[in-house]
């Protein structure tokens, strides 16, 4: 499986996700945000971090980085895109996913392992999970409070696009949403960090299935 991890200024989970992908047998290429060309790839990853220092709004400036034009082009042709944390924020700012990620309801940065339910296991990202599976996975964000208008939320729910939902809402997200996909199911944005959940030595391993699902679907 060929993968690209986009590196924005102050991305800081780019290495972690590359390590996770490598561990699953994918060989990630790191692509600098200033590039205008993407190599052939089966998956594009927008990693976590503080692209552009979260200045203006989290993800707002990264969504307009030179490489994003190419990301949008590939995404429209069906290349899968995974946005984790800051990557999810970038996806909403780029218009690839609906809604927005606002400041956490408690106004504080939150770093902890939370319980999340897999609401839809019929995506390329979640096929290795069981439907309704409860997984434990770390979150680490200041702006993870998912917001969209009621119509949009109803649509997301109706189309099975709410893929991950918090069991105990940590940040005020509408309908406890932790992750959503686009209509065609090729783009996933999620706040939890699956790349930090692949090794029993450092915590839970529930994030592994996401990478395994992708390898199975795309390799």
């Amino acid at each position, binding site marked *: 499986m060929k993968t690209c991890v986009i590196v924005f200024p*102050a991305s*800081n989970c780019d290495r972690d996700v590359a390590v996770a992908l490598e561990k699953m047998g994918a060989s990630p290429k790191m692509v600098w945000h200033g590039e205008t060309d993407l190599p052939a790839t089966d998956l594009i990853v927008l990693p976590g971090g*503080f692209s552009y220092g979260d200045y203006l709004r989290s993800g707002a400036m990264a969504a307009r980085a030179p490489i994003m034009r190419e990301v949008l082009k590939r995404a429209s042709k069906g290349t899968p895109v995974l946005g984790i944390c800051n990557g999810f924020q970038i996806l909403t700012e780029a218009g690839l996913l609906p809604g927005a990620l606002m400041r956490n309801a408690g106004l504080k*940065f939150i*770093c902890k392992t939370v319980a999340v339910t897999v609401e839809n296991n019929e995506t390329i990202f979640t096929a290795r999970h069981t439907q309704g599976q409860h997984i434990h996975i770390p979150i680490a964000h*200041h702006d993870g409070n998912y917001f969209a208008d009621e119509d949009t939320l109803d649509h997301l729910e109706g189309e099975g696009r709410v893929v991950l939902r918090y069991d105990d809402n940590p940040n005020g997200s509408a309908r406890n949403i932790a992750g959503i996909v686009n209509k065609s199911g090729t783009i996933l944005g999620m706040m939890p960090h699956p790349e930090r959940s692949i090794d029993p*030595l450092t*915590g839970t391993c529930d994030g592994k299935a996401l990478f395994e699902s992708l390898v199975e679907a795309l390799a």
Partner: protein
Amino acid sequence: MTAFAEGISAATVREHGLTEDEYGQILKRMGRPPNYTELGIFSVMWSEHCSYKSSRRWLKELPTTGAQVICGPGENAGIVDIGDGQAAVFKMESHNHPSFIEPYQGAATGVGGIMRDVFTMGARPVANLNALRFGDPAHEKTRHLVSGVVAGIGGYGNCMGVPTVGGEVNFHPSYNGNILVNAMTVGVVDQDKIFYSAAKGVGNPVVYVGSKTGRDGIHGATMASAEFDDNSDEKRPTVQVGDPFTEKLLLEACLELMAGDAIIAIQDMGAAGLTSSSVEMASKGEVGIELNLDQVPCRETGMQPYEMMLSESQERMLMVLHPGRQEAARAIFDKWGLDFAVIGLTTNTGHLTLNYQDEVVADIPVEGLTEDAPIYDRPWTSTPKPATLKADACPPPDDLGAALLTLMGSPDLASRRWIWEQYDHSVMADTVGGPGGDAAIVRIHGTNKGLAITTDVTPRYCQADPIEGGRQAVAEAWRNLTAVGATPLAMTDCLNFGNPERPRIMGQFVECLSGMGEAGRALDFPIVSGNVSLYNETNGEAILPTPAIGGVGVIRDLAKRAHVALEETGDVLLAVGKTGGHLGQSLFAREIHAREDGAPPPVDLATERRNGNFVRTCIEKGMTTSVHDISDGGLYVAVAEMALAGGIGAALEAPHTNTHGFLFGEDQARYVLAVRPDQVDRILSQAQDASVPAQILGHVGGAGLTVNAGRAVSLSTLREVHEGWFATTLSTRT
């Protein structure tokens, strides 16, 4: 008749924090009166913060060497060998004064500064820790300061993508007017890729990289070298403003440049900015340095040489490059969108020479600023040894369980979760043991080895008996590392004290260092870097003496480590070390009986070493994976913390006389181990062979804690009071 340059008077000299005598020495060294810019440069270089003039004489007596030490004090950070051609680079530094005035920015830039110290040496930072002290929780400023400091530490470290994995927090009224914010960073570097700050060679380009220079933080170092009074808020403009985004870019750009061999020397611009970085590089390289200030990237127009030299704008570095490498280096900084300017050359004059608008605006012999800086052997008085607290001063409580609950919900023992959940402690995906344990454990990336890291000191012991307190701070840091299975390697320190011009305070400093030095030698635990913060006083009220210790150890095989959580019902609890029931200076005495007097528990360093080595061996041999050191609050608190972490209770057996002393005494060199029943005899007999006292304490199991089969304290109640304190005290927005 003292001579002054035009526009300078005796008052100007005083405002620069220089004494009449010091000014006289400047005249002698310069051979003429200094101009305003030169006076400013002397004032920061000779400030307590930069020159260590009151402390240097005593710092020299600390143990700083050992087979594991690659670089001791004097560089940007200390370096120790961790095997396999790699090294750990670490240091702790204070940002006390700015954090009191502007908690968010003060703490944030403290974290930024210490990370720069580490990556300046070529290391990628892999862990941040901190040691924080605040005033009385009921004091009107405390909530605001805690919230701001925690947010600032998180704001900077989280953006950098370096996990904040541990630390410590205390509350005491002596910090009401002077909080302590001590930040520690640990990095990892290949031993053949270490960078130092000596600007060797003449005619080499001096390069400025990073953020532009602004008017922020001018005289920060001088501020950090004076006491506070009621008007300290007026010093807000001397606090720097941090930009972690730029620092993250600076980190990546520096490491990218360091992969090649363009750099001769590199130094971050921390306290006293461009002045101290250029002077220190020149001094270490035994060269002169000439700067053209017209080339300094400035944030605003019209900045004067004085301002450029004294600005403490953050996220800046000074480098000396091999000639001809400027353009390749510039390309890297261009890529990262950072300023890159060649601002000068190394020279053979031995002088710091500053040119601005075609004029020489300063010309000072480098030695005069560094080697010749004043050193004071300040008068000091010994702290009288306190009397041992009498047993009847601390009678048994009516209810042991209630006393445990009071302690577990007290400010110094309550869960710090509210704080550390605001820190990203899992980024980099190598955090094996995060906040809440005896020591944090961070895997060395791509290996099966780990670094164990801790910060610790018990200021109330240091106040009561500085020598014993100094010993204890080192011993406890060493013990914390041992309790997770690590071999302690070395430490860094952050020495926070009051006004050294007062003999009583100077005595605290001298005696704490004496105890620390003794312990460092006895435990093979040298001090490789550190920082001194004096004048922590407001309106003449000094803080408790607080020599914070940052300890680093190595775990060679991460499969052989321990954590604090109890694991299985039926496991046997063992106490290693002798329990004597010492209640003087204990949290029990303070929280239950409101007594802060008496002698602290004595530290026997030979016993400390013997007991610790025994516990480490038990972990290495796989005989236990559940270990906790016994410190604040004593044995019962240690077991309660283990029970909460594991979600299983325990039944303890305690002597029927002086039960409360047994449970809450703070005797040193002790650990609690939980072991499988079939290991008990083996461990007890090996302990006997090693002359280590060990006894059975009780058993793991149940939904609560009991003593001698008395009434149980349920884990749920315990958890409620333990987790509740911060949330109820601090989460209300102010």
